[in-house]
């Protein structure tokens, strides 16, 4: 799995951090998404899929490729 985030689309709701705190964080200055781990390990992937699903602005894109 490969993750990309679009910081321009992000509204800083934080749903992704709630779902997968090891993979996503938020910028100190404005709460916009920061990607900590663009290629997360297997055990994190279900949480990442949930993060992408609950993102209110579709700012998280996933490529499944294994």
């Amino acid at each position, binding site marked *: 799995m490969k993750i990309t985030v679009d910081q321009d689309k992000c509204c800083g709701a934080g749903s992704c951090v709630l779902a997968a705190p090891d993979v996503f964080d*938020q910028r100190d200055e404005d709460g916009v998404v920061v990607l900590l781990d663009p290629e997360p390990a297997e055990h994190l992937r279900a949480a990442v899929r949930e993060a992408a699903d609950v993102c209110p602005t579709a700012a998280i894109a996933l490529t499944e490729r294994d």
Partner: protein
Amino acid sequence: MTSTLDPTGETDETSENGESTAEAPEYPMPRARGCPFDPPPELRDLQREGPLTRVRLWDGSTPWLVTRYADQRAVLSDRRVSADMTHPSYPRQAPGGNATLSFIGMDDPEHARLRRMVGSAFAVKRVEAMRPMVRRIVDGAVDDLLDGPNPADLVEGFALPVPSLVICELLDVPYADHGFFQSNSKTIINRDTTPAQRDEAFRRLAEYLGGLVASKVENPGDDLLSRLARKVGSGELTIRQATETAVLLLIAGHETTANMIALGTLLLLRHPDQLALLRDSDDPTVATRAVEEMLRYLTITHGGRRRVALEDMEIAGRRVRAGEGLVLPNEIANRDPEAFPDPDRLDITREARHHVAFGFGVHQCLGQPLARLELEVVYRTLYRRAPGLRLATDFENIPFKHDGFVYGVYELPVAW
């Protein structure tokens, strides 16, 4: 005579002209008697019949009602729809008034600019760092409740103080003024308030918070109002913009959470098995899940999200024209069986985090991490420390906020 709906649930072409919009049902619809936790039955019927229908608002306008979960998410995250409250076709909740709710009623890029100025304060990990403070406030509020007269009104005695104390701490607003800002907030979010009354309540809150912001331009601290004050100092915000943001944060920061505490407690008292499950578990994830399910089940922001289509677009296979209004009642999307199996059953163990109780799209609630934290701490604390908590009146006597933009109870007499 042509019907708006044919048996397949498709709206026919005549709804494009005035003829069948005359049959559009009035919105908002009443909840059923005796079912105060459920959305209006008419909304349920409309959701079953088809994805899109015209409704008639207080001013005679006939925007589209979007009832299904997937369609609401699609519309609310679509950049071709606007939340601009000054748009002439914006489906207004109530008669006019000049008050604006800061970035809630704006589109990007100005919406994003203003929202991001306060975004960091509500970042998930930043909010998590507030847990000790929230715990202290909740423990103190439970102490006060249990040391006070028994029975008591849970709204005044607990549900309002907790989020008010938290937002006061975050904004550095003196809690001693809570009577003032709570009563003005109440006026603003009451659906039956006249435009003049609403403007006056806004004016008072703006004058009060504007004064606090101005004093922090001179003497800034670590709080959120000081953050806004610094933006005024740097020229990024006008004092008026900073004040409008402050008003929004103060109102949104206490009214919604207070209603989730009081109405949520009533819901649990009516579902003793679910209350026992929550109260008797040592697993903290039980409360975390319960918060999501209760947000879904109650969806207290029951005014219907309001938008305007800026371009001709398709919604659920139907053509919506530029300039047409859209109303999206989140409470019925959160009962959509396509998204939540057996949606009318309260089940605090279910996975419900994908609910739209906080809305969806760029306007989704900014304060949701703080709301979640407060509710989790309250739900984990109150029922354990008051295991005998019970209603001190008949259920039928409880006054519900049918007339508010935010749903809840006006008072909740409890004993323990």
